[in-house]
């Protein structure tokens, strides 16, 4: 009964989609995080003293002990490169004009790791463990978005 389909375009089929978009609002802690990023160009985390753990971005609660947390702990701008990848293809599998480097960074003062672009890594190969620094766009360009962060610059 089951045969391999060699020419999908010849199958009788119905094309469709789910006609919805989604509007994601950042929530209570997210509002504090993005407002601080936009207005002051700083990254806010949340510290749980009970669990000795600092989350970033800021969170309303500690997932380990359920304590309510404040969005009041500035982290970075310096940090440590925990891991990285170099991406050569886009989401459809198409080659990118120039490869993109994505880094996972533990910012100074934080336990959680954040993901963002690594800016112009240069000739020297990246090394896990090396120092990086967050680059925030000038205040006139900031809108309250994760893209208010330009990326991580090696060094610093």
């Amino acid at each position, binding site marked *: *009964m089951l045969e391999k389909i060699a020419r*999908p375009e010849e*199958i*009788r*089929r*119905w*094309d*469709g*989609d*789910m*006609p*919805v*978009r*989604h*509007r*994601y*609002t*950042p*929530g*209570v*802690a*997210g*509002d504090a*995080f*993005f*407002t601080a990023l*936009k207005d002051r160009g700083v990254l806010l985390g949340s510290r749980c003293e009970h669990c000795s753990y600092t989350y970033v971005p800021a969170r*309303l*609660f500690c*997932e*380990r*002990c*359920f304590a*309510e947390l404040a969005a009041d702990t500035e982290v970075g701008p310096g940090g440590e490169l925990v891991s990285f990848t170099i991406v050569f293809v886009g989401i459809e599998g198409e080659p990118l004009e120039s490869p993109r480097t994505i880094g996972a960074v533990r910012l100074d003062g934080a336990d959680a790791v954040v993901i963002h672009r690594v800016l112009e890594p240069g000739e020297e190969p990246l090394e896990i463990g090396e120092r990086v620094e967050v680059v925030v766009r000038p205040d006139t360009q900031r809108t*309250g*978005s994760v893209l208010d962060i330009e990326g991580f610059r090696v060094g610093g």
Partner: protein
Amino acid sequence: MARRVAVVGAGMTKFVRRAQETGKELAWEASREALASCELPLDRIDAVCLTSAPDAFDGVHMKGEYLSDGAGAFGRPYMRTYVGGGSGVFTAIQAYYTVASGMADVVLAVAEEKMSSTQPHPQGAFLTIFDNILERPLGPNLLWIFALEMNRYMTVHGIDKRDIAAVAVKNKRNAADHPAALLGQADITIEDVLASETLAWPVQRLDVSPISDGAVAIVVASEEAAKQITSDPVWIQGVGWNLDTAYWTNRDLVFPEYVANAARMAYGMAGVTEPRKQIHVAEPYDPFDYKELHHLEGLLLFDKGKAPEAARDGVLDRKGDLPSCPSGGLLGVGNPIAAAGLMKLAELFWQLRGEAGARQVPGTPERGVAQAWGDLMQVGTVVVMGREGGPPTTATQLETPPAATPPAATPPAATPPAATPATSLSDAEFRSATGAVEDEIGAKYAWDAGVAIGRFLDGLREGKILGRECRVCHRVLVPPRMFCERDFRGTDAWVQVENTGVVQTFSICNVRWDMQPLDEPELPAVISIDGSNGGFLHTLGEVKPDEVTIGMKVEAVWKPVGERTGSILDIAYFRPRTDG
């Protein structure tokens, strides 16, 4: 043998439109409240059960994993279950069997829904519950299913719409006493409901529960743990769940047999032999007002077709003989889908402990039933809760050892638990929130017809309606399938059935799926096809809306041969039979 299981704590957020809180934050608010209500720290929780309805509402794939931190699941056994609208009650059943089996002593059960994320309207996500090949080409919207079921229920039993509207009035008035309610309204009248906009006749706007955001959590414990945690546990005496056929147009739309089956399972476990005497308070599922009545009958609390009279006569009021939805239900408190179902268990918990404050039903109720409904409109989920007892025990069951520590001396709260705030954003705040983004999944789908429906569509192109015969149950199945879901064997032969049929039910629909008005009303109908034991959804034509009746004989109007493509739309519509 199963262990006895109790609910020992409950909490919920306010049900709101456009919550400022993320789904995780809502889940945490409700979970924290539930833990605080029984003075438990998170580290006393052994396992977490979570539910949330379609991923498409929050717009987050793998929503169970996304919500896990807010549900207290970090580092714990955790599973999201999902049975559509039945999910909220089902997650309590999941918590029940996790504890009853001995796998955990204390479980947190959490239900969350954030429907405001879906743009332009959550109904867009519901469209894909319709069959993509046989139904979506007809341009359905979710209201069709409810309108079609409601019309048939009303017509078969001769029910007055006023008696159904009485349910919406009761629940919105009850909700006026609920601190978490979105749509409480103490002064609403039947006339208000009957004067509200007709969306898809007989469904009017005030017959429908509101889209909402919110979360609910309960703490479920073994007998031994429960007695340590509280002096006032509420026992889960019985649970039941059951599914009807996935082919909704092949179903009895008048009586929810699947709810009755689930109720029989739960009552049997609870030792309830006369539910009308032994159930003192009910929280049936009420996304639409007629559904509460439909479900009260499915719960065997009223004879078929008799629940509307009970609504009319005040039997279902808080002070009536069988208080139904004293919380205010989905119609009054709100309908964040999965959360709304679990809210019903939370309400029974408060009612049975005498902690429901202004909502308290009189007379110290000893036993209640909560129920929800969903999936492809085919699942019933039922939980019986009571002050005493639990499932019947057997002689082989070991005596439960005495509690190691005396019960905590927490007297019943003098005032009803206040709802944890959830902050409702105005539409302007929602549109302009700092950090908000709008996006779409951007996935498109191509559905192929499969074996049975492929042949059915070939038949339509030739002007024939085809069914499949099962020679064990002697049914001719339309829409056809290659296997019989009752006998679970291959069906035997193709049968050409008639091009005529009977209108089982119909609606006069005035709105599109995104609730925008239509220029001309549409006439969706479920048509049982002559010569078969089934039927399908289509639309009616060549007839005025006010001339359509249930039981009307109709015939297929085919597109011209050259215009047929092998689609459900090869039948242009059905019209009243012209051969008399």
